[in-house]
């Protein structure tokens, strides 16, 4: 199905099932421990052996010798594969760091060997008996130093920066100016389920039961890496214990499970150990961001510049922290630019809302600072500088843009009028109280997505697609979509996901999953409706589907009757023409936060959080709300605690486990509120929905940082906002 213009009225608009806050259909499995994750597939293949992966103890150089004799002789060992056993394996297009093979080491904990044994305990004990010698190379691990040698990332036209108007001239002529630099640290996904894969060979055919967000990428990349035909690879990933971008790509667990299984002649399962994950896999790169804003006397932005520097391995990509600044606020003179330094740290790559999450952490503090310089309310300052068109291409409107409504509604709900503009002016006992606001912004991406739907004689509809549910609620919203389209209740729908034997979907990433994969199911259901109508001899254009029946005129039949002679199967994809070129498609939010800062200890406690989101039709308010509050929680981590500490001498992330890398826990998070504006976006897809999963993160950290400033009068531009950074400057408490 081609989507090339605004969606008209369609069966989804009935909202009998879609749009309702239904419980997840997979909930009773997840809550009883009966949903099978990758490492737990005892059911799929017998004689599974255990793999244990070890990694490089140096960050840059080469492996000069590996002695596996003792490890091989250890009890229970079936096979050992080392990186010296083969040349460097070819990467798929989305990986930067090599996953395995060859002597060259480009980052700490790059995988160097897998030991396969009868038991986990034996594999682990043998693995530490491998002796490895290394040669070291010159290297650079410190972004602050490396930024001076960073190269420009070419803008769209190949120049060093994207420009509109004359930024420098307009900035110097501005009545009020801000020129500040902000930093964000390296962050790690820290999803609860470690990367894990069970691999089994049948001749040349490889099956991976794994934990991956993007099944088709995974299948293609393992085929590339191991030199297989894609036809000989099956990937199955029905349950994924969190990803946040960390499981978008093929990782070493899958590669080494496959190599280990080949060597051992047995199915092999491997999970990356928790202390291995943070340096072996990918992370969100640290940034240094310079923001300049100039306004006229009324507070209108005349000039805005956002420049960001990040680091990555050679051939890696930058953290695109400038992206939102191209689109979020008006202003006739603009400059955005990125620079990329070469760092020999682990690979920087996508983490939830790549680009915007980091960019808004800086931009939305800058907006708060600017409002203060203008003596203007920060909500009003943002509303004043709203734009309804792409500021770089004013002929290109947004498909929908309700940022102003988000801000106004949020301000009213939150009691923003009670905020004192003068910082450090509200106290409750030993607590300094502050409120902060930030805008949230994240694009809505359209991408092809296919599905197959089956109808059996009992009237049961089965949805099959390689789409994944990483906690987002995909099972449930796809069931709702099929139920709405076929006129059945949700318990008449089965959804099977994550299998590469099924049609290729959008996958889970970039908050594109819900809208696109549901639209793919919509497209397949349109075809199934036609087959059902034809089978029953009813005119497809007049056929109605409701109450488990198909009816037209005076004829009515139970849906299952169409499948009495055999199951009906339909398959289709949603494919997009250029609607997203003609219209900028984005999602918007306002975030409001109240914090208390202990005046004696500097401890920050979040007291209240509210998000108001504008994201098209909300397919399931219960699961969508959870996406938003979960993202707000991750934003609390980004604001107050999350930071991979870089050992700039040895070149690795030091705090590489869940005790050292702190993420929010129950006690850190108050009751959270998330409100969705009641809207549909007919330009997004037939579902008229957009993404929410990343929007909820965008801007949260800055709202918290702004609230802390409002409480303390100490401005911190260096995330995370930990108490050591403001303790010495807090107002006197006595």
């Amino acid at each position: 199905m081609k989507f090339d213009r605004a969606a008209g009225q369609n069966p989804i608009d009935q909202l009998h099932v879609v749009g309702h806050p239904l419980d997840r259909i997979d909930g009773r499995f997840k809550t009883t421990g009966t949903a099978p994750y990758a490492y737990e597939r005892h059911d799929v293949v017998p004689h599974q052996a255990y793999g244990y992966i070890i990694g490089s103890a140096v960050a840059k150089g080469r492996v000069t010798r590996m002695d596996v004799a003792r490890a091989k002789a250890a009890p229970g060992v079936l096979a050992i594969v080392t990186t010296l056993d083969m040349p460097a394996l070819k990467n798929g297009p989305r990986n930067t760091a090599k996953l395995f093979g060859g002597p060259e080491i480009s980052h700490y904990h790059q995988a160097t060997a897998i030991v396969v044994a009868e038991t986990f305990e034996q594999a682990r004990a043998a693995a530490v008996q491998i002796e490895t010698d290394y040669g070291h190379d010159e290297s650079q691990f410190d972004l602050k130093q490396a930024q001076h040698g960073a190269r420009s990332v070419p803008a769209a036209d190949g120049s060093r920066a994207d420009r509109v108007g004359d930024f420098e001239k307009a900035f110097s002529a501005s009545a009020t100016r801000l020129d500040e630099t902000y930093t964000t640290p390296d962050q790690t996904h820290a999803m609860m389920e470690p990367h894990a894969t069970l691999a089994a060979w049948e001749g040349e055919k490889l099956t991976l039961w794994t934990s991956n967000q993007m099944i088709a990428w995974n299948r293609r990349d393992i085929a590339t890496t191991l030199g297989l035909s894609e036809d000989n690879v099956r990937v199955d990933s029905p349950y994924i214990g969190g990803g946040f971008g960390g499981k978008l790509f093929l990782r070493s667990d899958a590669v080494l499970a496959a190599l280990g299984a080949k060597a051992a002649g047995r199915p092999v399962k491997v999970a990356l150990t928790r202390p291995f994950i943070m340096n072996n896999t990918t992370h969100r790169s640290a940034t240094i961001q310079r923001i300049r804003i100039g306004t006229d006397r009324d507070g209108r932005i005349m000039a805005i510049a956002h420049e960001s520097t990040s680091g990555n391995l050679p051939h890696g990509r930058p953290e695109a922290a400038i992206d939102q600044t191209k689109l979020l606020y008006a202003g006739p003179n603009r400059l955005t630019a990125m620079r990329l330094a070469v760092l020999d740290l682990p690979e920087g790559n996508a983490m939830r809302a790549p680009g915007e999450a980091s960019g808004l952490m800086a931009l939305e503090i800058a907006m708060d600072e600017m409002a203060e310089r203008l003596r203007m309310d920060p909500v009003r300052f943002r509303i004043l500088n709203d734009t309804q068109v792409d500021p770089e291409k004013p002929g290109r409107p947004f498909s929908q843009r309700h940022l102003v409504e988000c801000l106004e509604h949020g301000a009213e709900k939150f009691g923003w009028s009670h905020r004192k503009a003068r910082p450090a002016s509200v106290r409750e006992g030993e607590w300094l109280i502050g409120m902060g606001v930030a805008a949230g912004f994240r694009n809505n991406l359209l991408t092809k997505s296919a599905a197959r739907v089956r109808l059996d004689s009992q009237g049961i509809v089965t949805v099959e697609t390689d789409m994944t549910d990483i906690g987002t609620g995909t099972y449930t919203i796809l069931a709702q979509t099929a139920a709405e389209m076929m006129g059945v209740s949700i318990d008449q729908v089965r959804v099977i996901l994550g299998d590469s034997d099924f049609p290729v979907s959008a996958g889970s990433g970039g908050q594109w999953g819900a809208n696109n994969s549901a639209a793919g199911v919509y497209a397949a259901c349109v075809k199934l409706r036609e087959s059902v109508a034809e089978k029953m001899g009813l005119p497809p254009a007049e056929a109605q589907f409701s109450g488990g029946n198909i009816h037209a005129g005076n004829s009515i039949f139970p849906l299952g009757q169409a499948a009495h002679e055999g199951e009906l199967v339909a398959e289709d994809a949603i494919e997009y023409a250029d609607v997203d070129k003609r219209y900028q498609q984005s999602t918007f939010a306002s975030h409001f936060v109240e914090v208390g800062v202990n005046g004696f200890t500097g401890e920050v406690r979040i007291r209240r959080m509210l998000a108001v989101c504008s994201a098209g039709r909300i397919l399931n308010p219960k699961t969508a709300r959870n996406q938003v509050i979960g993202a707000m929680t991750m934003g609390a981590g980004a604001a107050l605690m999350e930071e991979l500490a870089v050992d700039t001498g040895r070149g690795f992330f030091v705090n590489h486990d869940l005790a050292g890398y702190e993420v929010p826990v129950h006690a850190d998070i108050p009751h959270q509120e998330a409100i969705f504006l009641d809207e549909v976006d007919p330009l997004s897809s037939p579902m008229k929905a957009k993404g929410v999963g990343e929007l909820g993160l965008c801007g949260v950290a800055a709202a918290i940082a702004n609230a802390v400033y409002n409480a303390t009068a100490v401005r911190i531009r260096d995330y995370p906002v930990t108490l050591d950074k403001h303790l010495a400057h807090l107002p006197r408490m006595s």
Partner: protein
Amino acid sequence: MPPSMTLIFSRRAVLAGSAAIGVFPDPSPANARTEESPTQSLDVTFEVNGRTHTLHLDPRTTLLDALREHLLLAGTKKGCDHGQCGACTVIVDGRRINSCLSLAVMHEGDRITTIEGLGDPDHLHPMQAAFIQHDGYQCGYCTPGQICSAVAVLDEIRSGIPSHVTKDLLAPMEHSGLEMRERMSGNICRCGAYSNIAEAMAEVAGAQP
């Protein structure tokens, strides 16, 4: 739950037979780890979800791996294997523990309850039902640990066991949001469903004053 090493070494359990003798109906015998390991193995007998099991184990096997890999009760999750995340929480003799930090052979004679012992998809425990109703999860991986912890937390509060945030040790203890959040803080949910989990717990706590 005190680990009775004398019991373990009494070889009492060995008399029961070679390995994995329990009454557990093994869904996939081919995968149960019953092989005789070259490492010296030990026998341990404990009760899991009301059934007695005798296992012949490598002494390095954690309680977590004994459950997941030997008894094929994979509902208990391995998130970190270092006692940092809480995904492996189970209830042993009425108190919750991180099963990854405990060797299986230390549990001779213990009564262990895992997520599978609280309820199944057709017979949910009230806490499991409340998690579904309040959407107290996303990816589901920390969920069994959260639920086991939540059930044990309500019991701790009922039993008057104080926490870091308990202000008055002599007053009757309340199922306050503060108490529950504090006590649940060893169970990380990276998806960030804390606010919903708190509501699920409050509902169950209200039902059992």
